[in-house]
């Protein structure tokens, strides 16, 4: 894959061959854009796109996220047919548990907003929860919200599907190609220097996930986002019994049963090393195991097979960084997705391409622009998991 020489120049250089960068590149090519180049320092699925839990949901607390994720899930629905790859998409719902009255009120408010936007979300009492997942211990649970149309995918084929179709449409993809520097003339970027040579670039899209601040720093742009190690693990496979993806916004615990039968999940853990770090810890396993076995005691005897971690790209206001950078007008951001970039990528790729090529969705690209930090127009989102 990396043996081919790099092109001399490109109209658009996307840095980061995760699902976000590949979805943008694929959609640009689909709408007729030429000379699109995607670079990645590692291999496909090596970053967060290959390390996440595969949840896709429209249950959010802000109108923007509900609207976008509804469209993203619709795109997941047709992905396998369109991209000719099995993504093991299962629409088996998302169940958010609340263990306090305050959390329950938050879920109720979000549920009302979601219903306004056409989602089938409903609030369940402990009896209703038991009916849906009999194995849950609901003695500490006040209420839950459930949307039967949310789902789970196997993340890796999404990346391969986008990569293959993007290349079929003429996108050049080079993995194992590290970006060392960005060349500028005045305030604009003119070229990308890699460990395999230099490429002249007319514009650069930063889709490097948790590595984004490192990239933009090369042209003096400080992003407010920071990498955060998030750990996850998977158990031995079990006969299918668990329908929905279960989440608890209090602890950040989440788990689902994969199509291979494993219970895959994680939990919030603030006590991790600063910066880019993809190591694993026993502390995580202990925190996760305690909350999981409290939520579903029957899992106590089930064995953990493997644990790993990936990097979230966290912003202070929980919303992403999208669109052009004022100081460097041909540098575009597609980062800061808070650990939810995977599920956002199908729709973000399409919107990004439409925005760049046809100027669509100006309001969204203004709302999520980096300049909100300079202007003090911060946003909010309460349904962030992990």
């Amino acid at each position: 894959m990396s043996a081919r020489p790099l092109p001399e120049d490109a109209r658009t250089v996307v840095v980061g061959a995760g699902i976000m960068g590949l979805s943008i590149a694929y959609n640009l090519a689909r709408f007729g854009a030429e000379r699109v180049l995607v670079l990645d320092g590692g291999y496909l699925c090596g970053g967060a796109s290959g390390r996440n839990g595969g949840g896709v949901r429209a249950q959010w607390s802000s109108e923007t996220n509900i609207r976008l994720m509804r469209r993203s899930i619709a795109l997941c629905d047709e992905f396998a047919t369109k991209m000719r790859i099995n993504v093991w998409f299962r629409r088996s719902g998302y169940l958010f548990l609340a263990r306090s009255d305050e959390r329950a009120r938050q879920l109720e408010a979000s549920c009302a907003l979601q219903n306004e936007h056409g989602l089938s979300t409903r609030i369940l009492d402990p009896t209703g929860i038991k009916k849906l997942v009999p194995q849950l211990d609901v003695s500490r649970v006040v209420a839950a919200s459930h949307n039967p149309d949310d789902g789970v995918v196997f993340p890796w084929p999404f990346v391969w599907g986008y990569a293959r179709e993007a290349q079929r449409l003429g996108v050049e993809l080079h993995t194992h190609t590290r970006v060392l520097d960005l060349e500028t003339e005045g305030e604009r970027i003119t070229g990308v220097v890699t460990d395999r040579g230099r490429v002249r670039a007319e514009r650069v899209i930063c889709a490097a996930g948790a590595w984004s601040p490192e990239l933009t720093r090369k042209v003096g742009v400080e992003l407010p986002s920071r990498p955060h190690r998030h750990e996850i693990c998977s158990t031995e496979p079990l006969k299918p019994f668990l329908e929905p993806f279960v989440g608890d916004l209090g602890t950040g615990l989440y788990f689902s049963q994969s199509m291979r039968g494993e219970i895959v999940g994680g939990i919030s853990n603030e006590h991790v090393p600063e910066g880019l770090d993809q190591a694993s810890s026993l502390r995580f396993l202990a925190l996760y195991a305690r909350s999981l076995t409290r939520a579903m005691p029957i899992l106590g005897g089930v064995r953990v097979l493997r644990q790993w971690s990936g990097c979230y790209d966290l912003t202070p206001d929980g919303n992403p960084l999208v669109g052009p950078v004022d100081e460097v007008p041909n540098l575009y951001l597609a980062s800061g997705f808070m650990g939810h970039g995977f599920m956002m990528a199908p729709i973000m790729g399409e919107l990004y391409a439409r925005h760049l090529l046809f100027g669509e969705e100006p309001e969204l690209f203004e709302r999520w622009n980096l300049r909100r930090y300079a202007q003090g127009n911060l946003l909010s989102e309460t349904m962030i998991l992990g």
Partner: protein
Amino acid sequence: MSNKVLICRCEDVLLDELEEAIAKGHDDLESVKRYTGFGTGWCQGKQCTALVARLLVSRGGVAPALPITPRPPFHPIPLADLAGLCPDDAEEPA
């Protein structure tokens, strides 16, 4: 007689499937792992990693400098045992 050759016994990955992955351009060890799922099962690659690495090199792939990242725990451990290791200072927020 079947000509299927099993390389990863935990995840049922066949020689043919590994050959196909390499032919499709997954030509380094980590990429082959992700494409085929070899090494992600019960033994976590203890039995198959060396075989796959040898196959990869013989088919012109990138010679791995390291094995696939070893994933803890070393042996499968029950969740209840792990829950008992939770530090006392870690409260569970509501």
